[in-house]
Protein backbone atom coordinates (compact mmCIF):
# COMPACT_ATOMS: atom_id res chain seq x y z
CA UNK A 1 0.00 0.00 0.00
CA UNK A 2 1.08 3.57 -0.66
CA UNK A 3 0.00 6.69 1.14
CA UNK A 4 -0.50 10.05 -0.49
CA UNK A 5 -1.29 13.49 0.81
CA UNK A 6 -4.18 14.81 -1.24
CA UNK A 7 -4.36 18.57 -1.80
CA UNK A 8 -6.12 20.98 -4.12
CA UNK A 9 -4.48 23.74 -6.07
CA UNK A 10 -5.91 25.69 -8.97
CA UNK A 11 -9.12 23.67 -8.52
CA UNK A 12 -7.21 20.49 -9.25
CA UNK A 13 -6.50 17.51 -7.08
CA UNK A 14 -2.83 16.80 -6.58
CA UNK A 15 -1.19 14.06 -4.56
CA UNK A 16 2.21 13.80 -2.93
CA UNK A 17 3.86 10.65 -1.70
CA UNK A 18 3.23 10.90 2.06
CA UNK A 19 6.78 9.77 2.77
CA UNK A 20 8.04 13.02 1.27
CA UNK A 21 5.76 15.22 3.40
CA UNK A 22 7.48 16.61 6.46
CA UNK A 23 4.66 18.74 7.76
CA UNK A 24 1.74 21.06 7.22
CA UNK A 25 1.63 24.64 8.42
CA UNK A 26 -1.03 27.28 8.47
CA UNK A 27 -0.10 30.75 7.30
CA UNK A 28 0.11 31.82 10.92
CA UNK A 29 2.45 29.00 11.80
CA UNK A 30 4.61 29.62 8.76
CA UNK A 31 4.90 33.32 9.53
CA UNK A 32 5.82 35.99 7.07
CA UNK A 33 9.50 35.20 6.78
CA UNK A 34 10.58 33.20 3.80
CA UNK A 35 11.90 30.65 3.45
CA UNK A 36 10.12 28.69 6.15
CA UNK A 37 12.47 27.17 8.68
CA UNK A 38 11.42 24.30 10.91
CA UNK A 39 13.71 22.51 13.34
CA UNK A 40 16.66 24.20 11.77
CA UNK A 41 15.77 22.98 8.31
CA UNK A 42 15.17 25.59 5.65
CA UNK A 43 12.30 24.85 3.29
CA UNK A 44 12.77 26.99 0.22
CA UNK A 45 9.59 28.34 -1.29
CA UNK A 46 8.49 26.60 -4.49
CA UNK A 47 5.86 28.36 -6.57
CA UNK A 48 4.23 25.21 -7.84
CA UNK A 49 1.28 27.03 -9.38
CA UNK A 50 3.71 29.03 -11.48
CA UNK A 51 5.74 25.98 -12.46
CA UNK A 52 2.62 24.18 -13.59
CA UNK A 53 1.14 27.34 -15.15
CA UNK A 54 -1.95 26.95 -13.00
CA UNK A 55 -4.15 29.65 -11.56
CA UNK A 56 -3.17 30.54 -8.06
CA UNK A 57 -5.90 30.12 -5.47
CA UNK A 58 -3.79 29.50 -2.40
CA UNK A 59 -4.86 32.43 -0.29
CA UNK A 60 -8.06 31.21 1.29
CA UNK A 61 -8.96 30.11 4.80
CA UNK A 62 -7.97 26.51 4.02
CA UNK A 63 -4.55 27.47 2.69
CA UNK A 64 -1.72 25.34 4.01
CA UNK A 65 2.02 25.26 3.57
CA UNK A 66 3.20 21.75 2.74
CA UNK A 67 6.77 20.97 3.76
CA UNK A 68 8.44 18.49 1.45
CA UNK A 69 11.72 16.66 1.38
CA UNK A 70 13.22 14.33 -1.18
CA UNK A 71 16.73 13.41 -2.19
CA UNK A 72 18.34 15.84 0.23
CA UNK A 73 16.27 18.79 -0.97
CA UNK A 74 13.65 20.59 1.07
CA UNK A 75 10.94 22.92 -0.12
CA UNK A 76 7.57 24.34 0.79
CA UNK A 77 4.53 24.83 -1.40
CA UNK A 78 1.27 26.63 -0.81
CA UNK A 79 -1.90 24.72 -1.52
CA UNK A 80 -5.51 25.85 -1.44
CA UNK A 81 -6.67 22.97 0.72
CA UNK A 82 -5.44 19.78 2.27
CA UNK A 83 -8.03 17.07 1.71
CA UNK A 84 -6.39 14.31 3.63
CA UNK A 85 -4.30 11.22 3.47
CA UNK A 86 -5.20 8.57 0.97
CA UNK A 87 -4.01 5.01 1.22
CA UNK A 88 -4.21 3.04 -2.00
CA UNK A 89 -2.72 -0.07 -3.43
CA UNK A 90 0.24 0.66 -5.69
CA UNK A 91 -1.71 -0.84 -8.58
CA UNK A 92 -4.31 1.92 -8.19
CA UNK A 93 -1.76 4.50 -9.24
CA UNK A 94 -2.20 4.51 -12.99
CA UNK A 95 0.66 5.59 -15.23
CA UNK A 96 0.39 8.86 -17.10
CA UNK A 97 -1.04 8.05 -20.55
CA UNK A 98 1.68 7.50 -23.14
CA UNK A 99 0.38 10.35 -25.29
CA UNK A 100 1.90 12.76 -22.83
CA UNK A 101 5.30 12.88 -24.46
CA UNK A 102 6.87 16.04 -23.13
CA UNK A 103 8.82 16.93 -20.04
CA UNK A 104 5.63 16.51 -18.02
CA UNK A 105 6.55 12.84 -17.84
CA UNK A 106 9.07 13.98 -15.22
CA UNK A 107 6.45 16.03 -13.38
CA UNK A 108 4.05 13.26 -12.50
CA UNK A 109 4.35 9.79 -11.10
CA UNK A 110 0.90 8.84 -12.25
CA UNK A 111 -2.80 9.30 -11.71
CA UNK A 112 -5.05 8.13 -8.89
CA UNK A 113 -8.73 7.51 -9.53
CA UNK A 114 -10.86 9.19 -6.91
CA UNK A 115 -14.58 8.71 -6.44
CA UNK A 116 -15.64 11.28 -9.01
CA UNK A 117 -12.37 12.75 -10.08
CA UNK A 118 -8.70 12.03 -10.52
CA UNK A 119 -5.62 13.22 -8.69
CA UNK A 120 -2.29 13.83 -10.34
CA UNK A 121 0.56 12.31 -8.36
CA UNK A 122 3.39 14.78 -8.44
CA UNK A 123 7.02 13.76 -8.57
CA UNK A 124 8.35 15.43 -5.43
CA UNK A 125 11.92 15.27 -6.75
CA UNK A 126 10.86 17.41 -9.70
CA UNK A 127 8.87 19.77 -7.47
CA UNK A 128 11.87 20.31 -5.24
CA UNK A 129 14.25 20.74 -8.12
CA UNK A 130 13.06 24.34 -8.14
CA UNK A 131 13.94 24.69 -4.49
CA UNK A 132 17.67 24.59 -5.10
CA UNK A 133 20.23 22.45 -3.34
CA UNK A 134 20.42 24.23 0.01
CA UNK A 135 20.12 21.82 2.86
CA UNK A 136 19.14 24.40 5.40
CA UNK A 137 20.99 25.24 8.55
CA UNK A 138 20.62 26.22 12.13
CA UNK A 139 18.04 28.78 12.94
CA UNK A 140 16.68 30.26 16.07
CA UNK A 141 13.20 29.81 14.73
CA UNK A 142 13.23 26.07 15.04
CA UNK A 143 12.57 26.13 18.78
CA UNK A 144 9.29 27.90 18.20
CA UNK A 145 7.97 25.36 15.73
CA UNK A 146 6.32 22.05 16.38
CA UNK A 147 8.16 19.00 15.08
CA UNK A 148 6.72 16.77 12.36
CA UNK A 149 3.40 18.48 11.76
CA UNK A 150 1.73 15.98 9.50
CA UNK A 151 -1.84 16.20 10.76
CA UNK A 152 -4.97 16.25 8.71
CA UNK A 153 -8.47 17.39 9.57
CA UNK A 154 -10.48 14.26 10.00
CA UNK A 155 -13.54 15.73 8.30
CA UNK A 156 -11.52 16.43 5.17
CA UNK A 157 -9.76 13.13 5.07
CA UNK A 158 -10.37 10.53 2.41
CA UNK A 159 -9.49 6.92 2.76
CA UNK A 160 -7.60 5.73 5.76
CA UNK A 161 -6.22 8.49 7.92
CA UNK A 162 -3.27 8.03 10.16
CA UNK A 163 -1.63 10.77 12.08
CA UNK A 164 2.11 10.73 12.11
Amino acid at each position, binding site marked *: MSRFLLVTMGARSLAFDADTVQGLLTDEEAGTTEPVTVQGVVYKTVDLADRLAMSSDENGPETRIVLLTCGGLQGSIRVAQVRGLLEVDRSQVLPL*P*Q*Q*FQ*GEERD*WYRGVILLEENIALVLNTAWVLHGAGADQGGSSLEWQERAPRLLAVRQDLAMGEVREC
Partner: protein
Amino acid sequence: MLRAGIGNQQTSASRSWNLLVFSVGGRRLAAKTDEVAGISKWKESVPVPSRTPYISSVVRQDQTVLPVFDLAELLHVSVRGNYPLCLTAKHPRGTLAICIDEEMPLLQTLDPSSIRQYQGSEFAAIGSFLSVHVEIPIIALSKLGSASWSSHHDTGKS
Protein backbone atom coordinates in the same frame (compact mmCIF):
# COMPACT_ATOMS: atom_id res chain seq x y z
CA MET B 1 -29.04 -12.91 -59.40
CA LEU B 2 -29.41 -12.47 -55.73
CA ARG B 3 -26.24 -14.36 -55.00
CA ALA B 4 -24.35 -12.45 -57.66
CA GLY B 5 -25.77 -9.23 -56.30
CA ILE B 6 -24.60 -10.06 -52.83
CA GLY B 7 -21.20 -11.01 -54.18
CA ASN B 8 -20.89 -7.71 -55.97
CA GLN B 9 -21.92 -5.88 -52.85
CA GLN B 10 -19.30 -7.71 -50.82
CA THR B 11 -16.61 -6.99 -53.39
CA SER B 12 -17.68 -3.38 -53.49
CA ALA B 13 -17.80 -3.16 -49.70
CA SER B 14 -14.33 -4.62 -49.37
CA ARG B 15 -13.00 -1.97 -51.73
CA SER B 16 -14.94 0.87 -50.21
CA TRP B 17 -13.78 3.03 -47.41
CA ASN B 18 -16.02 3.20 -44.37
CA LEU B 19 -15.83 6.64 -42.91
CA LEU B 20 -17.23 8.48 -39.95
CA VAL B 21 -18.07 12.07 -40.80
CA PHE B 22 -18.15 14.43 -37.85
CA SER B 23 -17.61 18.09 -37.15
CA VAL B 24 -15.47 20.17 -34.83
CA GLY B 25 -16.35 23.83 -34.51
CA GLY B 26 -18.59 23.43 -37.54
CA ARG B 27 -15.74 22.12 -39.67
CA ARG B 28 -16.57 18.77 -41.19
CA LEU B 29 -13.98 16.03 -41.01
CA ALA B 30 -13.94 12.33 -41.68
CA ALA B 31 -12.03 9.43 -40.23
CA LYS B 32 -11.77 5.79 -41.18
CA THR B 33 -14.08 3.78 -38.96
CA ASP B 34 -11.19 1.36 -38.39
CA GLU B 35 -9.55 4.10 -36.38
CA VAL B 36 -12.63 4.98 -34.32
CA ALA B 37 -13.21 3.14 -31.06
CA GLY B 38 -16.53 4.78 -30.24
CA ILE B 39 -18.73 7.81 -29.80
CA SER B 40 -20.14 8.75 -26.42
CA LYS B 41 -21.35 11.69 -24.41
CA TRP B 42 -18.56 14.08 -23.53
CA LYS B 43 -17.60 14.12 -19.88
CA GLU B 44 -15.89 17.03 -18.27
CA SER B 45 -12.15 16.83 -18.79
CA VAL B 46 -9.53 17.28 -16.10
CA PRO B 47 -6.71 19.65 -17.05
CA VAL B 48 -3.21 18.20 -16.82
CA PRO B 49 -0.46 20.80 -17.11
CA SER B 50 1.64 19.57 -20.00
CA ARG B 51 4.16 20.50 -22.65
CA THR B 52 2.82 18.04 -25.20
CA PRO B 53 1.12 19.97 -28.00
CA TYR B 54 -2.68 19.65 -27.93
CA ILE B 55 -2.69 17.13 -25.09
CA SER B 56 -3.28 18.89 -21.80
CA SER B 57 -6.22 17.16 -20.19
CA VAL B 58 -7.70 13.75 -19.56
CA VAL B 59 -11.19 12.33 -19.27
CA ARG B 60 -12.18 9.49 -17.07
CA GLN B 61 -14.08 6.55 -18.48
CA ASP B 62 -14.97 4.20 -15.66
CA GLN B 63 -11.66 2.85 -14.37
CA THR B 64 -9.53 4.22 -17.16
CA VAL B 65 -8.12 7.64 -17.90
CA LEU B 66 -7.96 8.76 -21.50
CA PRO B 67 -5.78 11.59 -22.74
CA VAL B 68 -7.65 14.28 -24.65
CA PHE B 69 -6.38 15.49 -27.99
CA ASP B 70 -7.61 19.07 -28.41
CA LEU B 71 -8.52 18.96 -32.09
CA ALA B 72 -10.54 22.17 -31.74
CA GLU B 73 -7.44 24.02 -30.60
CA LEU B 74 -5.45 22.62 -33.49
CA LEU B 75 -8.14 23.84 -35.89
CA HIS B 76 -8.46 27.19 -34.08
CA VAL B 77 -12.19 26.68 -33.52
CA SER B 78 -14.47 26.09 -30.55
CA VAL B 79 -16.54 22.96 -30.20
CA ARG B 80 -20.19 23.71 -30.91
CA GLY B 81 -23.21 22.74 -28.90
CA ASN B 82 -24.20 22.37 -25.28
CA TYR B 83 -23.85 18.61 -25.37
CA PRO B 84 -20.62 17.82 -27.22
CA LEU B 85 -19.66 14.26 -28.02
CA CYS B 86 -16.55 12.25 -27.30
CA LEU B 87 -14.90 10.51 -30.20
CA THR B 88 -12.53 7.86 -28.91
CA ALA B 89 -9.81 7.15 -31.40
CA LYS B 90 -7.55 4.15 -31.71
CA HIS B 91 -3.94 5.19 -31.51
CA PRO B 92 -0.64 3.31 -31.39
CA ARG B 93 0.07 4.80 -27.96
CA GLY B 94 -3.41 4.06 -26.60
CA THR B 95 -6.94 5.31 -27.00
CA LEU B 96 -7.39 9.06 -27.37
CA ALA B 97 -10.47 11.13 -26.57
CA ILE B 98 -11.47 13.98 -28.87
CA CYS B 99 -14.25 16.46 -28.11
CA ILE B 100 -16.43 16.98 -31.18
CA ASP B 101 -19.58 18.97 -31.95
CA GLU B 102 -22.90 17.72 -30.66
CA GLU B 103 -24.07 17.12 -34.21
CA MET B 104 -24.40 13.36 -34.54
CA PRO B 105 -21.64 11.88 -36.75
CA LEU B 106 -22.63 10.07 -39.91
CA LEU B 107 -21.38 6.83 -41.37
CA GLN B 108 -20.45 7.09 -45.00
CA THR B 109 -19.15 4.55 -47.47
CA LEU B 110 -16.89 5.96 -50.12
CA ASP B 111 -15.49 4.56 -53.32
CA PRO B 112 -11.69 4.91 -53.24
CA SER B 113 -11.77 6.51 -56.70
CA SER B 114 -13.47 9.55 -55.19
CA ILE B 115 -10.70 10.11 -52.69
CA ARG B 116 -8.15 12.70 -53.60
CA GLN B 117 -5.08 14.16 -52.01
CA TYR B 118 -5.71 16.65 -49.23
CA GLN B 119 -3.73 19.84 -49.66
CA GLY B 120 -4.09 21.13 -46.11
CA SER B 121 -1.26 20.66 -43.67
CA GLU B 122 -2.72 21.34 -40.23
CA PHE B 123 -3.02 17.63 -39.49
CA ALA B 124 -2.00 14.32 -41.04
CA ALA B 125 -4.66 13.30 -43.55
CA ILE B 126 -5.22 10.17 -45.57
CA GLY B 127 -6.95 12.18 -48.28
CA SER B 128 -10.18 14.05 -48.82
CA PHE B 129 -13.42 13.86 -50.75
CA LEU B 130 -16.07 16.24 -51.95
CA SER B 131 -19.48 16.35 -50.37
CA VAL B 132 -21.90 18.89 -51.83
CA HIS B 133 -18.95 20.88 -53.21
CA VAL B 134 -17.25 20.97 -49.83
CA GLU B 135 -13.93 19.24 -49.36
CA ILE B 136 -13.94 16.96 -46.34
CA PRO B 137 -10.49 15.89 -45.18
CA ILE B 138 -10.02 12.35 -43.90
CA ILE B 139 -7.96 12.81 -40.79
CA ALA B 140 -5.46 10.13 -39.82
CA LEU B 141 -6.47 9.64 -36.20
CA SER B 142 -3.65 7.17 -35.58
CA LYS B 143 -1.11 9.87 -36.42
CA LEU B 144 -2.48 12.57 -34.14
CA GLY B 145 0.26 13.89 -31.93
CA SER B 146 2.97 11.93 -33.71
CA ALA B 147 6.34 13.54 -33.33
CA SER B 148 7.17 13.69 -37.03
CA TRP B 149 3.93 15.48 -37.82
CA SER B 150 3.93 17.71 -34.73
CA SER B 151 7.45 18.96 -35.34
CA HIS B 152 6.41 20.27 -38.73
CA HIS B 153 3.17 21.88 -37.66
CA ASP B 154 3.47 23.03 -34.07
CA THR B 155 4.76 26.49 -33.79
CA GLY B 156 3.60 28.18 -30.62
CA LYS B 157 3.62 25.22 -28.26
CA SER B 158 6.62 23.39 -26.98
